[in-house]
């Protein structure tokens, strides 16, 4: 894929891509120039796992379907959306992890209470 792009580098930009249907080469270029860098941004800047980073970028494109304004710069817009989604994703993950921790502790407490109760019952017996 990369070799093919280097041999025939048509100068396509994401903005150009909005004006006409893309050829295979253009799609490949788009993939390398827009999609992958955005995925890497989500991975390395926002510390997301690779698969989740791909989901976030994909979601950004889905949002672009309904919200993107051609008057504005699509690249800058996409970066902002990816950052926004990645931060939200991270916040949710952290919150979920904290909740899981709290539930785990509650379960352990419950277990220990149960054990103590059983021991007390045995003592009473």
């Amino acid at each position, binding site marked *: 894929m990369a070799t093919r792009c280097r041999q025939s580098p048509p100068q396509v930009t994401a903005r150009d891509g909005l004006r006409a249907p893309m050829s295979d080469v253009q799609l490949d270029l788009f993939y390398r120039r827009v999609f992958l860098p955005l995925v890497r941004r989500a991975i390395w800047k926002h510390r997301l796992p690779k698969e989740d980073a791909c989901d976030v970028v994909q979601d950004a494109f889905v949002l*672009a379907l309904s919200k993107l304004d051609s008057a504005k710069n699509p690249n800058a817009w996409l970066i902002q959306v990816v950052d926004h989604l990645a931060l939200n994703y991270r916040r949710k993950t952290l919150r979920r992890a904290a909740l899981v921790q709290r539930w785990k502790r509650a379960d352990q407490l419950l277990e220990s209470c149960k054990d103590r109760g059983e021991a007390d019952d045995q003592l009473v017996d």
Partner: protein
Amino acid sequence: MIDLRTIREWGEATRDAELRRGPTILESIRRAEFICTRLNLQQVHEIAAELQSREDRADVLQALRLLLESVGDSPDDDRFRQLCGAYDLAVRIPWEDEVGEGADLRMNLALIAWRHCRRFKTYREAHEWEARCVMEALSQEHVCDFIALSGRARSDALSRRYFSDGAVLVALCRKLQDERNNDFSWVATEASLAFEAMERLELPAIAEERAFFMASAAFSAACSFKYLGSFRVAKKWLTLARKSLETVVGSRPYRALVDFAELALLQEFHDHRAIVERVDDVRQELVVCGLDWHVACADLLRGECFKADGRLSEALVAYREVAECPASAGDHLLRGLALLNAAGVSARLDAKVDLNAFRMAQEVLEKQPAKWPLAQLQASVGEFLRDSGRIGAAIEAYRSSVRLYEDLDMKSKAAYVRLLLAEALIAAGRVLDAGAEITQVLRVAEEHGVAADIFAAVTLLQQALERVSTSNENAHTRRLQLLRNLLRAEK
């Protein structure tokens, strides 16, 4: 809106495109570690030549940045050299992306280097890395868009996203710094809003860095409020800047800047005795911290003190030294102000001096963007013309100065020049016009509480009255009455 069919094609393309397997995060980190060790042993261009041909170069460089993140927290010189090498490497690698990945990476590497230099190295080195960080940040359109947006127009969600990025704040603080001598009305608002947002959102997350940016914003706010004549507000902001710096590592140069700004503020209160007491110590600290431009500014302040003390020859020497010093060589504002002050003092020392010295200062001052020095120049020219007996021309120069100051919203300065204008009008026998000017001054004094300026102005007016010939008894009585009214209103 854009063509939906094409955007759908985007969606299809990204969904169906088989994600390249590429390296895992761990693999990238391992490769980055290897490059890190090579940065100590090999030339950067050799590593760059090798890395360029690799498919995973972007991932490896991103991992390298992650590995070097801790350099900002450590004084270790070897690690700092590795970081400089990594930045050089990122500069040499071509980036085929359209979303500014390369610029973002270089911006973050420069940010780490700036953080390291700010904490553990000199002000000058920190300043160099700050410039690189700002350059890379502003090469990204979305960062430019954010910085151009007014603080009032930013939602909390948007501010949260950008204020969590130290590099964006470096760029924002730099913009406030660049504009505070020029567009101070804008800076007064924006710096205050930025300070408030950082405090409320507790961003950036690193508390020490947040304190630094808050200090920087507070300092810019103080400078701009000083220009606007709100001296007490400026003093409050300087106190906040000093307080924020308490938790900042390596804050010595920045504390020296706050000390200097306090002295400059004392000048507005005409407290020259306090300035004289402290100026040498503050200047020495600026010298030690390598703040050359501010050292020259301190010399200007010293000249002001000599002038206020009547030591005009010493003041002239001080101004001329500033005009010739290397710090003012490429700085039209500093050089122009030094030339202007030198011209003013020369005129007072030697009545034969003509307007050429002022013209030379004007030529230099017109090369820089700030307009207030030109208002100051008109006021100085007015003083020169008045002292050489050309009262009509002096009145015109004063009026031009008042207009410029008012256009810039510098009400306090405008009020001050109005009093000089009133003095010239009295000398021209136009007592009623002078009274009208003084009434306007008192209105501004009431609105803005610039009592210190008024006291100084009243002193000036007293001096003027002493200078005016007492041959015309009626005129003299009228002037004294005016002064009495002024003092009554001041009470």
